[in-house]
């Protein structure tokens, strides 16, 4: 559909929680009624509270998490894929087009496979290459792009540092030439120099290979630098969304403001200038009515306290959306 690659329409994801066999089943509301459009060729940033549902949303878009309600459409050149309604063949094709770079590279890499085999696996599983030689070439090519030495390829992942492992997962995700990448905290484990290097690499590959990214990160300075559009999540909801420069310069939501003020300063003499968030962190099992940030908001209005206004985004500037509770 035009310039969008992905449309996320009213998506919710719930998980079951049960304390023990006899107790009542409860629901964890991990992702609530999310609407986003990801433009082709964009670097879409997702930031927010830990546990707010970023990974869950990313996985839902990849078809790796079941969607409880709503739908996700992937607009490929020739056709659309409706993720809530795919047959086996569709799913197989979709897997080639959309890939995940994992949050925890330790858990993601099989300890019994060499790095070469780890990177080659997607090619083999998806039968993308026709000979071992071709596979090796592609593996070496992408490994070099991700700054892994050829000699690294014969080793097992345990022999690598966290940052090196992260580069292995990036190579693995990119080897099949996908169109869409969910990068979940992909640079968090890297030192700043390699981080800058990988971000430049992701940017470079974006224009070279025409990639679209959903970039999940806690590092707001990084997000501000690489992302075109940013959505801020809190407790399963998007509370603010907009072009990244506009959003970082002119944050409207109280949570976004608190986030920006908490970026640790590089000056040791400026400790603790953060807007400190007090109050109970609410639970996804039992989200408060009205604004979900209300229990910790440093300056709630009178209306917010009652929790009478339901959540939903409203446009305050062209393309800049803020939760309506916070604007009223």
């Amino acid at each position: 559909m035009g310039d969008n690659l992905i449309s996320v329409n009213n998506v919710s994801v719930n998980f079951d929680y049960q304390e023990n066999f006899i107790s009542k089943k409860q629901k964890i509301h991990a992702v609530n009624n999310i609407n986003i459009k990801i433009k082709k060729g964009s670097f879409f940033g997702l930031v927010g509270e830990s546990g707010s549902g970023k990974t869950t949303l990313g996985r839902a878009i990849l078809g790796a998490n079941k969607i409880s309600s709503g739908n996700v459409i992937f607009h490929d050149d020739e056709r659309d894929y409706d993720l809530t309604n795919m047959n086996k063949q569709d799913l197989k094709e979709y897997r080639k087009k959309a890939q995940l770079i994992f949050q925890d590279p330790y858990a993601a890499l099989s300890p019994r496979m060499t790095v070469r085999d780890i990177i080659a696996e997607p090619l083999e599983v998806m039968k993308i290459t026709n000979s071992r030689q071709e596979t090796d070439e592609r593996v070496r090519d992408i490994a070099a792009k991700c700054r892994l030495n050829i000699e690294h390829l014969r080793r097992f992942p345990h022999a690598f540092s966290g940052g090196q492992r992260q580069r292995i997962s990036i190579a693995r995700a990119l080897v099949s030439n996908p169109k869409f990448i969910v990068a979940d905290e992909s640079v968090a484990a890297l030192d700043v120099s390699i981080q800058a290097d990988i971000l430049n690499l992701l940017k470079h590959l974006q224009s070279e290979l025409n990639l679209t990214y959903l970039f999940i990160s806690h590092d707001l300075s990084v997000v501000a630098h690489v992302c075109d559009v940013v959505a801020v999540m809190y407790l399963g909801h998007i509370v603010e969304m907009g072009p990244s420069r506009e959003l970082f310069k002119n944050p409207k939501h109280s949570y976004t403001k608190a986030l920006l003020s908490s970026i640790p300063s590089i000056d040791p003499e400026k400790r603790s200038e953060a807007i400190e968030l007090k109050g109970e962190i609410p639970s996804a099992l039992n989200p408060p009515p009205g604004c979900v940030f209300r229990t910790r908001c440093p300056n709630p209005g009178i209306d917010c306290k009652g929790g009478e206004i339901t959540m939903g985004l409203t446009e305050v500037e062209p393309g800049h959306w803020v939760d309506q509770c916070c604007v009223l």
Partner: protein
Amino acid sequence: MSHLLEVKNLDVKFDTDEGRITAVENISLSVDQGEVLGIVGESGSGKSVTAKSIMKLNPGNTSYNEDAEIILDNENVLQFTSKQDLKKIRGGKVSMIFQEPMASFAPAIKIGAQMVEQLLIHKNINKDEAKSISINMLKRVGIADAEKRFNQYAFELSGGMRQRAMIAMALSTMPKLLLADEPTTALDVTIQAQVINLIKDIIKEYQMGVIFITHDLGVIAQVADHVAVMYLGSVVEKGPVNEILKNPKHPYTKGLLQALPDINNLDAPLSPIPGNIPSPLDRPTGCVFRTRCPHHNPEGKDGKIEMKLIEVEPGHWVDQCGIQCGQNG
């Protein structure tokens, strides 16, 4: 007064199929009670390996040099072999927050059960007490519904909750020395600020010593008293946090600070340190950084000058090559 922890002349090598890897070379560090030592540096520079050495957690293919010492509370940890002694450094006097949260929780055992077990091993308390200490700690690290999370498996928690659960577990035994390996990387900045404040409070309360490994220089600025900068297994610069961040001397430290994305200047390109990290199988002789250094001079480049830290300001130590080349470059 003697230091809580003193690492002297430590080398750590791994035997692999392709040969012997030098992961750490000739490192000396100290940590006092109530002090936070930050370690920063390139991925693969040996930060985690150094921390794991203090608990003797490196795998079977590891060798330490004969003259190395890791003195904790007046005992040389490297000499420890008995179960009794090892218990002291693995959860007793020392706890570690691991870089890989998934690795430190067994997948099939609930978070709470693991916390309780760890406490029962190291503290003289009963199950109920252990449970209440654990839940209380989960609450202190900002986990909502701590009683319920206590009953969940690691995979059911988000990355950041897992990391906080691990922090809670490491702190619950109140060790004398806390090794925190990238403890806040999976946390959003508001929770990060909260966890950093918690760790600071607990350090004060219990006079704990802390080694805080992170690549986030902002976090270093917020928590550390002293900082050591590592590159390819060597400490190239160390000193008080203010000195290192405001008056860096070594070209590698300067490069790190320049690579930092600046949120106030979004038009600036991201500038990594040029070049590639050499493989630990062929560490450069002389200055380890010379293959990437913008100021190398032939002497540094030929690797004739051996690495050695010298004091340039009170407490501020820099690799001597670094200063010489820096001046000539």
